[in-house]
């Protein structure tokens, strides 16, 4: 590419990145404003954060949201990993394709359809709407993404790896715990984190199946935002942004951890010789 066009390209992505981040920065900046609207910035203050931390209802909702995210991610990661193992073990290409298409239905369905159909489902089974219906829904829509994260690792694994373990005397259980799971571990971790973000990000499905007593942050933000601007939400945005950043960092730390620690161990080993 010529110099001129690459310069133009750089200007272009800088502009788009500014646009991408502007709303988020805007939110966070105003969370520190003394005023009460997202228009004129009236000097730095932490009042809105103070308000937020004294808002018992908001704190309870925050804890519920995190609880739902963690619980649903744990369950969906387990079920999704088992599902991925099942799909990759499918003998015929046909059944593999069928399973995969079924798996992806929830990923491509519009949120409202998922929400509406889960609502019908829970009501016909007489499951009360609230914590359990939300938890089950979150597990349900997180499973396919876990499968999609784990499956490529399984496909990458050479079948001779399993044969080798069996050849050396491993039982099916030992093959799974000593060879397969360690190999697909990065995919499982990625799936777990994707599941958490899906859960934290979901609004529509929760909105449909949550009933009256139980609320998550997304639903709460929606109902407050419909009433107009409240800088307490900005403060919440600031906290959630930091929370997301921490999640990203933790994720990258875990992803690199194994490699790094193995290298360290290796260096020690070499030094000992």
């Amino acid at each position: 590419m010529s110099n001129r066009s690459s310069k133009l390209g750089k200007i272009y992505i800088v502009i788009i990145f500014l646009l991408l981040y502007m709303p988020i920065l805007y939110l966070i900046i105003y969370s520190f404003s003394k005023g009460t609207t997202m228009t004129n910035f009236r000097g730095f203050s932490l009042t809105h954060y103070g308000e937020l931390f004294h808002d018992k209802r908001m704190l309870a909702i925050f804890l519920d949201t995190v609880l739902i995210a963690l619980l649903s991610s744990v369950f969906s990661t387990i079920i999704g990993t088992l599902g991925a193992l099942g799909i990759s073990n499918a003998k015929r290409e046909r059944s593999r394709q069928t399973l995969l298409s079924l798996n992806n239905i929830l990923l491509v369905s519009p949120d409202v359809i998922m929400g509406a159909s889960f609502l019908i489902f829970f009501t016909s089974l007489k499951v009360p709407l609230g914590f359990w219906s939300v938890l089950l829904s979150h597990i349900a829509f997180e499973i396919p993404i876990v499968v999609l994260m784990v499956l490529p690792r399984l496909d990458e694994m050479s079948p001779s790896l399993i044969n080798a373990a069996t050849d050396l005397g491993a039982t099916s259980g030992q093959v799974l715990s000593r060879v397969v799971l360690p190999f697909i571990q990065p995919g499982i971790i990625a799936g777990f984190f994707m599941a958490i973000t899906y859960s934290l990000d979901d609004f529509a499905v929760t909105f449909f199946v949550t009933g009256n007593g139980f609320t998550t942050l997304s639903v709460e933000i929606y109902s407050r935002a419909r009433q107009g601007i409240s800088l307490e939400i900005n403060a919440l945005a600031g906290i959630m942004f930091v929370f997301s950043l921490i999640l990203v960092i933790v994720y990258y730390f875990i992803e690199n951890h194994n490699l790094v620690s193995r290298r360290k161990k290796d260096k020690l080993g070499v030094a000992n010789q």
Partner: protein
Amino acid sequence: MSKTIIELQHVYKKYDDFTALKDINFKLNQGEFYTLLGPSGCGKTTILQTIAGFTDATSGQVLFDGQKINDIPANKRQLNTVFQDYALFPNMNVFENVAFGLILHKVKKAEVAERVHDALKLVQLDQYANREISELSGGQKQRIAIARAIVNRPKVLLLDEPLSALDAKLRKDMQYELRSLQQNLGITFLFVTHDQEEALAMSDQIFVMNKGQILQKGDPVDIYDEPINHFVADFIGESNIIPGHMVRDYEISFLGHTFECADAGMRPNEPVEVVIRPEDLVITTPEKGKLQVKVSTQLFRGDYYEILAYDMQDNEWLIHSTNATTDNAIIGLTFGPNDMHVMRYNETEAKFNSRLETYEE
């Protein structure tokens, strides 16, 4: 003297619309180096997997030490495999990989350390116990895979094209090493390859396979000098194969000439094929030659010239010579009666062997 360790009896392997193995029968003796040789898709790896237990034979028996092992799962069979892609576990280091089988068999810690050390020493990598798999070169991975397989002291080692991923130089070195390793350990090796040079260099016995069948078995020299048919002659080494017919015993006719030959036991005037290896052709003047050919191209191969020439009927001739010739020159070719090997069409291995016995000492 040596006893049979593995025997296959009438083994078939059928998939939906494809027969991978057709009536495979063979016996492997203790302490010998066997090679299954054939093009890709000929079923050689399927045989290996049937013996290892990764796949079940559709019918027929697999015997190990005289016991039928068809129904014994792979993890209970007393043999180990070296895989084409090495299949070293990436989540374990070298030591952990080699120790894997021992730990599964609940061998005591001190003994594990000792045996892993010995196995690594055998493959000359005892300094590498703490390395990660990702830090090894191809040749080193190869040796670790071998160490991991022999540390369990199997009676038979199965090797599935273990050298195919290595470069030419390393492959030659590993051929020597594998051969001496096999002789030191004194266990049976069953080696699978599509590389005829590898097979000729290392094996005590070779099984040449094509399309799910064993075409010929024998020691490397026999297979090279007396291939049973066109496929084997063409697959093993380079060869000139010319159609002709037997005039009578010890006399063959092709390309309009009649020559004395060393083969017998065929019907008079039976159509046959003649194999002449390129290194058995000697270049002389056109007048002295038994055949006259015109040189087309010659390639310098380092230790010899490979010459491509055509005779008057436009048949291609491949000649190996230590001396160069001139392009487009007409040259003569001579060969002795023993340089020709005559093959009958559709002769079975049993008939081929019994025919050879009638006239060979």
